[in-house]
């Protein structure tokens, strides 16, 4: 499978990718995007099987990215990896068509629990 990791922080993209490996999901192709706009372009070009996106990014936020994808008819499985995890954001994410939110800080165990049904 191909996984798109979208986060404006280089170090957080590396941590997400490292944690995917530590969780045992190491046989997947990874592509990276530095903000929501780049992720939207990458979804069209790379056709990932899963998007793991930060929420708070410049140019286009994660929730704006999700809305843009869904309004264009793209139904790629989409999950947020975000430092903010309020009930309000969970409701917005769910209404927008996201699978779930993984809150930062996370562990490899969290990734295994949340992603095993998709990547396992």
């Amino acid at each position, binding site marked *: 499978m191909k996984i798109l990791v979208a986060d*404006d*922080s280089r170090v957080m993209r590396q941590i997400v990718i490292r944690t995917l490996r530590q969780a045992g999901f190491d046989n997947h192709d990874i592509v990276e995007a530095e903000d929501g706009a780049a992720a939207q372009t990458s979804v069209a070009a790379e056709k990932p099987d899963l998007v793991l996106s930060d929420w708070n990014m410049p140019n286009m936020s994660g929730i704006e990215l999700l809305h843009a994808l869904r309004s264009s008819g793209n139904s790629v499985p989409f999950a947020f990896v975000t430092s903010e995890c309020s009930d309000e954001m969970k409701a917005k994410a769910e209404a927008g068509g996201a699978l779930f939110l993984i809150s930062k800080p996370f562990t490899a165990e969290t990734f295994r629990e949340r992603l095993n049904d998709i990547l396992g």
Partner: protein
Amino acid sequence: MTNDVAMNVDVDLDIIAEQVWSAFLNSGEDEAIFAADDKGSHADLAASVAMVGAYEGHLVVSCSHKASRDVASVLFAMEADEVSQDDIGDALGELANVLGGNVKSVLPSPSQLSLPRVSATEHERWPGTVEVCRTVVSWRGEPFVVSLLSGGHAVHKTQEVPA
């Protein structure tokens, strides 16, 4: 909207800091002391995120150059002498972002979190704010002061890299 600077908020910075350090900075008990003594240590860099909305203020983490280099080294999984200034800015900014996101989750809502900002402490001021609470994490012998400020005008929009 601006907070009443006397606003009471129930934020356990000790717990939030411990969760972040434990998950991302491999902090076993041998490396980190949480709720450490605040000995008025010198800080060279400050990373912060602003909160705007029902709660207005800033979450600030400040530390020495050496401490910031160590954070970047661990988060990027690189040797300390290989990390660049960009790496340090990114890593320290993300540390503030994760701390701020978790703090925001227990503050009055709705509010927005800014992108992180990193700068030299000698150039950084938060006028019109008061400190609501703070904790100190001693990690690898270096203190990190984590402060929640209330009030002021939160206008962070862009991420800056330390000079």
